[in-house]
């Protein structure tokens, strides 16, 4: 018996079976393995943040040395630009006041005015080519509470679609990026009564930073350069978030026109993202422990 217990094949088999059982159980809410991983995350996250901060500092320091002369030249140009921009800023502030007056007068509705927008930084990205998600530094503690079946859109600083939040933990959340094989969103051609399409991640295209687009209508004409935005169908993403542009179109199957799309958002280079939480979902988190004042949105429309 002792010989069996110390046999390498027996140890490998037993641990593997245990882990496989754990993986299957992790599909269920409250899985013990997820609890272990979640606890470990509290210990690992600060270390990873430290490594990232050190890496960034080193990278910045190196860039400062390497680009010293260029930076001096750039600095001179930037000072001139700042003076010019200050002048323009004054003008725009005037214009903004005028806009607010007009908005109130004509009840102009912002495109995303019924969403609160929470800022977050990307902590970690995909580790390899398979199915990894992105982790951001905003979670339940910051007020992003996700209930069963819910999901929140994530956009970049230009309001382009990045993905959606699929799980939240104490101080971080998991974002399913739009290049992920499991991602899917309803889109449309960005024009009045634009044709409906489905944008989804694809294992092959992902490596080139592209997504797959499937068209519903037989007679649809997609061309390279066509801009695709979210259609608002399905209720998850609000109407009008820019997704990307069509790169190539395949008409070989007339019943199902497919295309490739390059997202506007360069996910590999992103540092900051914004989580869009609809007001009604936001209301639900009232009374949830951890939904503190620090969760105040960085920007938000007027309902």
């Amino acid at each position: 018996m002792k010989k069996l217990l110390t046999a390498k094949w027996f140890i490998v088999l037993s641990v593997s079976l245990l882990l496989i059982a754990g993986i299957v159980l992790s599909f269920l809410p409250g899985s013990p393995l997820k609890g272990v991983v979640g606890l470990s995350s509290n210990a690992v996250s600060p270390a990873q943040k430290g490594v990232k901060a050190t890496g960034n500092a080193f990278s910045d320091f190196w860039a400062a040395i390497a680009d010293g002369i260029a930076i001096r030249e750039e600095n001179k140009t930037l000072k001139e630009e700042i003076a010019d921009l200050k002048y323009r800023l004054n003008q725009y502030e005037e214009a903004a006041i005028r806009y607010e007056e007009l908005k109130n007068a004509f009840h102009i509705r912002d495109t995303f005015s019924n969403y609160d927008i929470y800022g977050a930084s990307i902590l970690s990205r995909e580790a390899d080519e398979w199915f990894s998600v992105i982790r951001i530094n905003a979670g339940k503690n910051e007020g992003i509470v996700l209930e069963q079946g819910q999901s929140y859109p994530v956009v970049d600083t230009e309001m382009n679609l990045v993905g959606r939040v699929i799980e939240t933990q104490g101080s971080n959340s998991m974002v399913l990026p739009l290049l992920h094989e499991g991602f899917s969103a309803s889109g449309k051609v960005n024009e009045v009564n634009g044709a409906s399409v489905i944008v989804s991640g694809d294992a092959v295209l992902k490596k080139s930073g592209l997504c797959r687009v499937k068209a519903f209508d037989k007679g649809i004409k997609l061309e390279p350069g066509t801009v695709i935005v979210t259609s608002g169908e399905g209720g998850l993403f609000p109407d009008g978030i820019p997704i990307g542009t069509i790169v190539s179109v395949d008409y070989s199957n007339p019943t199902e026109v497919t295309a490739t799309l390059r997202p506007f958002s360069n996910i590999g280079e992103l540092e900051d993202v914004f989580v869009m939480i609809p007001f009604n979902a936001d209301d639900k988190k009232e009374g949830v422990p951890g939904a503190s004042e620090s969760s105040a949105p960085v920007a938000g429309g007027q309902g």
Partner: protein
Amino acid sequence: MDRRRLIRKIIVYAVYILLLSSLQVSYPSRLGFLGQTADLAFVFVVLTGYFNGFIDGAVVGLITGIVRDCLAPIAIIGFDGTVHVTAGIGMLVMFLAGALSSSFFTKRMHRNVPFAFVSIAFCTLVYKIGGHFLAYSWTIIIPSAGSYQLGFYEIVVRSCLLQTLLNLIAGIPLILLMRFAGPVSLSEQRKTSDDVIMTNEDTSWLQI
């Protein structure tokens, strides 16, 4: 093993696991080429199994896997057709990598550095081929997971061979680290040499 060596081992392993796993998920674009990323943590686990045996490989693999599951969890489409963040896949992959690479930990290999590259290449290929097979099988079992239509060129050249090449390149500095600043000191490695690899019926164990 005396207490001092054990503490050194634990500290060095902990530092490397945290450092390499963090670098892996913080700067993947700088470690990548043509859509593939050199897997530092995976290579480290393989080298641990190769240089220090089954127990080290398996334990370091499990812990690295937990860190991987924390920092870059895998999300797949479940039986209900929705995407779920899983836990444990990283642990399983890294544990098996550590266990598999320790099969190269024999008297014949003599902790030979060139064979460390063979070990990295072998484990990477097994991981990639197994991964593609499982990903394909998953789409068969779960129809809502869509199709996994990767061609021969995509799987063999752009996935398996490219990842193997990147891991081999990543292996160069990691082998040097394992040899000269690893969990087992160089003098200890020389002193103990093959005598520490005690071969029994079905396995080889490191006896430091």
